[in-house]
């Protein structure tokens, strides 16, 4: 817990890292100052893209002691304001799952190579980023914890599968190699409470270590103070659960 007599220092900057297919993509990097060792976290940004809320979130994690790296998963769409780039990606049907997973795997490897990281790397994502975080934690070895906040389309009907999203993330559950924290709003439609039930049942079926919390009077994106979806009490409790989970598994 932070107290006012503590020293606190964070450095945050844009860096370049190797992503999918060896592409050099930009990433937002925020880390606590000091020699460490510090735990590390990859962030999978949400559908609105590599935006200010996510930069603030990277900074928030860094100020809590996590070396945090957020790859720009929309890098190949070109550059502009985060909204304009995200709108372009939306029109293209999103980014391919394989590409997002490999970008996030690149972030994990980048973090593991840093001399001041304690050897533990988690992954956090919200919205489409929660889905991408879950996919990465299932398909890539090397993550020690995953936080999926209201990731939609983890459960997908067969007719929704396509070239970019050929496999429903829930179908990779047997391969999940780390504990998962899931936070969901009971008023959400993507994922709906029924889809969260299905996800939970699959985790249980495969004997995975999981912790799901579901909030009443909350829909999609209840952490986002910039949107009308923000729900203060649920968000404050959710953040407490995120930090408790990460401390338990990454310290």
């Amino acid at each position, binding site marked *: 817990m932070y107290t006012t007599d503590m020293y606190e220092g964070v450095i945050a900057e844009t860096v370049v890292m190797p992503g999918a297919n060896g592409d050099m993509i930009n990433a937002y990097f925020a880390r606590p100052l000091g020699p460490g060792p510090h735990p590390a976290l990859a962030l999978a940004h949400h*559908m*609105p893209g590599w935006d200010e809320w996510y930069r603030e979130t990277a900074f928030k994690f860094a100020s809590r002691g996590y070396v945090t790296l957020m790859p720009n998963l929309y890098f190949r*769409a*070109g*550059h*502009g*304001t985060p*909204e*304009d*780039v*995200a*709108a*372009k*990606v*939306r*029109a293209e*049907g*999103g980014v391919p799952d394989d590409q997002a997973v490999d970008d996030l795997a690149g972030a994990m490897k980048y973090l593991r190579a840093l001399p001041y990281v304690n050897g533990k790397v988690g992954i956090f994502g919200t*919205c*489409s980023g929660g889905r991408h975080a879950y996919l990465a934690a299932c398909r890539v070895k090397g993550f020690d914890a995953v936080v999926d906040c209201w990731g*939609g*389309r983890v459960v997908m009907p067969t007719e*929704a599968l396509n070239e970019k*999203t050929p496999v429903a993330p829930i179908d990779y559950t047997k391969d999940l190699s780390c504990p998962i924290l899931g936070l969901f709003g009971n008023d*959400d*439609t*993507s994922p709906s409470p029924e889809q969260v039930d299905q996800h939970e049942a699959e985790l249980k079926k495969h004997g995975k270590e999981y912790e799901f919390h579901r909030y009443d009077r909350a*829909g*999609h*994106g209840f952490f986002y103070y910039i*949107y*009308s*979806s923000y729900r203060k009490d649920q968000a404050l409790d959710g953040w407490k659960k995120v930090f408790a989970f990460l401390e338990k598994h990454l310290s």
Partner: protein
Amino acid sequence: MCTMIVEKVKIEGSGKGTNGWFKLDGANVSYDHPFDAPFEHALNIDFVNASQGPSARVAVELSESAARDLVKTILAVLDRAEAEGHLESRPANL
């Protein structure tokens, strides 16, 4: 990208963005999370020129009822213009 409900249509016309008017070559219509409108999902229309990059975009985010009203209104205006003999097969070269 939580619903992935999106359709693209080629269009002709102009749009006014932050840098002034530009030629449009498409409209991307989605029902997904808006960036600004106070709804969990909205009918989003991005009028774009793909060749000019992501910033060549004029965006609107509408409620479902607003979108349906807009569609009816556009069709009503076009019907009236047609009835009054104003429709042209090609834009006038003014």
